[in-house]
């Protein structure tokens, strides 16, 4: 259940970009979560909703871009989607692989409405 502290870290980062009086304009927070980051997107959005309730960010939606685990293989020179975590190339079985994606845990950007929900 570390999704709660991850959600809090996201809120803290967003807070560095928008003043509290502007936070009501945030409609979407886009994050990138890799398949190997050990974070469950549904739990994360649940926690985000829970900790932003009653705050200026209450109207913001957390949008998760889930990034698959991909490896590139130096032996057969292919890139492919692999079973999460497996270091072996799905094509040739070599262990000479490098992780291309899947460990992401990033805040990408935030989208703001110029009109606050109260003004609608």
């Amino acid at each position, binding site marked *: 259940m570390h999704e709660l502290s991850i959600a809090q870290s996201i809120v803290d980062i967003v807070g560095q970009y928008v003043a509290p009086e502007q936070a009501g304009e945030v409609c979407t927070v886009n994050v990138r979560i890799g398949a190997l980051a050990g974070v469950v997107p549904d739990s994360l959005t649940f926690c985000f909703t829970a900790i932003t309730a009653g705050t200026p960010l209450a109207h913001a939606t957390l949008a998760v871009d889930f990034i698959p685990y991909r490896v590139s293989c130096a032996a057969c020179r292919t890139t492919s989607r692999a079973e999460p975590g497996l*270091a072996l190339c799905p094509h040739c079985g070599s262990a000479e692989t490098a992780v291309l994606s899947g460990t992401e845990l990033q805040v990408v950007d935030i989208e703001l409405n110029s009109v606050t929900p109260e003004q609608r």
Partner: protein
Amino acid sequence: MSVITIERKILEKNDEVARQNRELFANHDLFVLNLVSSPGAGKTTLLERTIEMLRDTLKIAVIEGDVQTDLDARRVAKYNIPAVQILTRGGCHLEANLVREAVTNLDLRGVELLIIENVGNLVCPSNYDLGEEMKVVVASTTEGEDKPLKYPAMFRNASVLIINKIDLLPYINCSLTALRDNALKINPSLTVFETSCTSGAGVRAWCDWLVENARRKPAS
């Protein structure tokens, strides 16, 4: 509609404190390990056997992370080594700032090896850098040979795997070879030790590795 680009790591605050911890550990010439496993794999018992074997060889300090109680810190404090307990009070993992606080309560003079025993959990601690030199993951035979495949992130981020409770192999349905192979499929560069903290088998090899690495000072 306007967009503010952020592009920042969610755990950057933790990573920054971990970096400071790493700097502090380097200043003390400390070899620091982050010991992780699922609950009951034998982390604390392994620590006890390690301290017993190395107490006259290596100066060891321990940080114990648990959700509740100081039972583990009391278990290792029996050996008269610097030990401090971190209570996460519900938290499923240690974070770098908790370790930084704990370190201020430790007498690090002369200490060569600091072992941070994380909360028993194979998921959450893999995300949180504490400032350690490497993660050591303990997997016990009773958990089954498929543990590495089920929790790949932890085995991928670890440098050392200790397969514990090998004395129980005759009584359970677990193949040591399959367990080791599964772990190496996730992380081919793992250094693997096979131990029984009950019989003491394999503990010497692990302790020799510890001494060798703790004494290998950076060439600065």
